[in-house]
């Protein structure tokens, strides 16, 4: 399980963002590789699945909008094998909630390796927060 936790943090940043986007966050990874800090546009969320003693799990759902969830879905599929043995799960659903083999136009219900719940949805082009973005490489 510790191996999964460590790998899971790195994978989850890759899944969410393709790459870490804040230099400070990259420094954190070097000092302590476990905290996760995906940065999405001007919004970031950080979690420390290491926990004391257990990983923190939010009782709720984080909804993330992406311009193309197919790309995200493909990354989830790649990560699934490495995260086997953890709570990681990704289910594609149609907008009406029914399970679907195709994620186009639908919703991804994701459980991270520690049990946090995410909804990945398709966002409109104008949904991106125009106020600004975090420094760093643009991922998606």
């Amino acid at each position: 399980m510790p191996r999964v936790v460590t790998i899971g943090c790195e994978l989850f940043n890759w899944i969410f963002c393709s790459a870490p986007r804040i230099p400070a966050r990259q420094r954190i990874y070097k000092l302590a590789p476990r905290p996760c800090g995906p940065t999405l546009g001007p919004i970031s969320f950080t979690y420390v699945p290491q926990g004391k003693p257990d990983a923190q799990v939010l009782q709720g759902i984080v909804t993330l909008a992406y311009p193309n969830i197919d790309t995200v879905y493909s990354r989830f599929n790649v990560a699934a094998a490495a995260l086997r043995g953890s709570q990681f799960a990704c289910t594609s659903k149609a907008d009406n909630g029914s399970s679907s083999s195709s994620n186009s136009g639908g919703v991804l219900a994701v459980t991270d390796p520690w049990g946090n719940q995410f909804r990945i949805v398709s966002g409109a082009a104008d949904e991106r927060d125009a106020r600004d973005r975090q420094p760093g490489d643009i991922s998606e």
Partner: protein
Amino acid sequence: MRDLTIYAPRDSNLAGIGRFYRDILGAHVLMSDNDNTKDNNKDHHQCIVTVGPKQTLTFVPHPDSQQTVRHDDLRDEQFESPAGFPAHLSNYGPHVSMYVADLASTLERADKLGVTYVNPRFKRRAFTLGEARAQCMFRCLDIVDPAHSEQGVILKLEHEVRSVVQTNGSLYKSCPLMRYPTLLLQHLVKYYTVTVVSIC
């Protein structure tokens, strides 16, 4: 991030949660329980708070009625508060961070309601307005209905309430907004808070 949904215990006073965000933190409430229809219309049993131009913070009852809902993890680490200030337990539960346009007035309202909090596990500890200004932040833990504070705490969820700017007028180092000041930005910040969700 389009939305952060926080589960609340069944039969929580969601209208009161909405009033907390509206009256204390200065957010706009898109939808919340109407006190009169709360028990009759399940579709309305939620509280949706606008925390950005395209972002909401939602409170709903936990879908599993048997599940205990708890967002705090309080531990006594023998922290001694400065003289004249109450002792606080360390919270290892998740916290929600958000930026407000006017930190001082927000702190004043939170303090008046009695919900300010210092988490000893963090180095930055704001017991006073001066400390909050210097550190660009303060915390609160209890969500209380400002219209019915006598009913007590609705939900314990730690908030780190941040200022966009430092006392010298420069942008706070962790603020996600990169351009400041501009009239447009000031306008947006005035009417919307920016939420940074932290689970740490």
